[in-house]
């Protein structure tokens, strides 16, 4: 029996997409150690250009249109993954 709050395969896949996007911008041990609920800009020391590149990368690979109003939802790996699944990805 699967607990109700267990991450689904879709969640897992969405998180992998987010991490893959981050890996194009800021790969390395900090990303490997990044927790799903940590503020990713702080933890990976992304400046605003890095963050913009991450957003563009994510938008390109998933086909999801990401507006600036959505940026707060990309604060952590978990919230970004939730944003993607809500948009129907993967």
């Amino acid at each position, binding site marked *: 029996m699967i607990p109700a709050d267990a991450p689904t395969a879709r969640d897992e896949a969405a998180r992998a997409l987010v991490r893959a996007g981050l890996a194009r911008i800021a790969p*390395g041990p900090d990303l490997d150690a990044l927790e799903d609920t940590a503020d990713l800009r702080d933890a990976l020391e992304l400046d605003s250009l890095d963050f913009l590149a991450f957003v563009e990368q994510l938008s390109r690979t998933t086909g999801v249109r990401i507006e600036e109003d959505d940026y707060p939802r990309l604060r952590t790996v978990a919230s970004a993954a939730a944003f993607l699944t809500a948009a129907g990805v993967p």
Partner: protein
Amino acid sequence: MELIEKPEAVRRRARMPDYARARRTFTWAGARAQMSGLPGGRGLNIAHEAVDRHATGRGDAVALRVLSRDGAVDEVTYAELRRRTDRFANALRALGVARGERVFTLLPRTLDLYVVALGTLKAGCVLSPLFSAFGPEPVAQRLRLGEGRVLATTPRLYERRVRPQRADLPDLRHVLLTGDPAEGPDDGEEGCSALQHLLDAAEDGFTIPPTDPEDPALLHFTSGTTGRPKGAVHVHEAAVAHHATATAALDLGPDDVFWCTADPGWVTGTSYGIVAPLTHGATLLVDERDFDAERWYDVLAEQRVTVWYTAPTALRMLARHGAEAAHRRDLSALRHVASVGEPLNAEVVRWSAEVLGTPVHDNWWQTETGAIMISNFAGEDIRPGSMGRPLPGIEATVLERGPDGRALRTGGGVREVTTPGVDGELALRVGWPSLFRGYLHEDERYRASFADGWYLTGDVVRRDADGWYWFAGRADDVIKTAGHLVGPFEVESVLMAHPAVAEAAVIGKPDPVAGELVKAFVTLRPGWWPSDALHDELIAFARRRLGSVAPKELVVDPHLPHTRSGKILRRLLKARELGLPEGDLSTVETS
């Protein structure tokens, strides 16, 4: 010629309502008279002008309004700032730090940074602020070159950026850690002390020692095309120029709420992010966090910012964000907006006039000039896309260039370009107070910056028939990205330290938001092949060491162009990147 005209009411209320008249009547002696000087004729000290002179009489006025990471807003009055900076100056004394010794900061924009900076100047020490997003490599290099005696930083930054290299920093005697003393390393460990303990133990009240206006005050590192970063030395008299140019170019005065978005780790963030607003007795807004469009609009509106000094990259990001976010807020307090860091495109000037209610006033200066040299003005029309005209007290010109792209020197002399609209190197007549007084330990490089009484800026410009200046590019390979100057050599050196890299070349790739992005080209050593994994490894390698100046893009290119003497031709790489004709190839060999 496109023009943004200023209404009569705007012209009249400007602190410099008549540019032509100001140029005729301005003198640096007159500007100097705006300073109080140390009591008893004991000289001129930046911290006295910025803090102590307001602490009596206007002591209750708010000097700093600090917006912290957690959303808290703290106000510090001039009287309180005096008390805190006095204590820090006493703490430096107690540590035995001597006058003229260098105190570095590697701090986020919190109150500690401003207390340490101004207290350092009070004590007669030299302040060298570093950008807290620098990686360990640029931090250690600057500390070494500047023979940093004291470093104030956070426990986290110390752990990540400094501690691993502490053994290579023999001059660094004291590391002062901010934050809760209980959470940092124990006092005494590796010469670390808790800043809070030092301030608690320090006495109130500090008498600034006699300070010669020519005493060194600030050390700012800047990047060249080749070699190590250069440490530009500025003296206490620079405050005269910080103050006067803030009036003329930023329309700044004592009743303003002023927000300079530059970090004090860059010269803008010191000259105008610490010194000028405080010498004016204004309220300086300090925002610990980085750019975020919605939050920045909130700050402008809620803090009732009247004068705003920011960078083209931030403005372009706001413009992308759409006008609606601005229209939702009350920006009626905002009277003047200025920008520096890289050329400001005309579209952004027009966008600002429409959306922010006032056009952006572009200006130009650099680390070595210490203060704004060329600007658009509050009381004058704007030619969108132009960096403006020389400030009162500043004489500028355009010099003919030689084959190396720099000003042509013929028998010790130089030749001015007199035909309007023709490219040349921007040069400034020596003699204003904030001109740098040297590159630390590099007299030869310093002397090479001057010819025939002109300071040679390394920037290529055009001057139109009416005397307005237009930026054309750099005369060298230095990269201007997001308002910051990055030396390609520093980045290349780090990449070359990776075992896979045989050669590296770094250029500024034009970017619609950042002006330029740092892009690296590498060739691989035998036994290494290009792959996504290697790409990621090199990007990570550079980020870990360089922090914010690391390349944003990296490609493996087995055919880097060289001169016959074996130097990589960055200029040619850039032409290739842009799809431009590659020019005269007679000295080139492609490997």
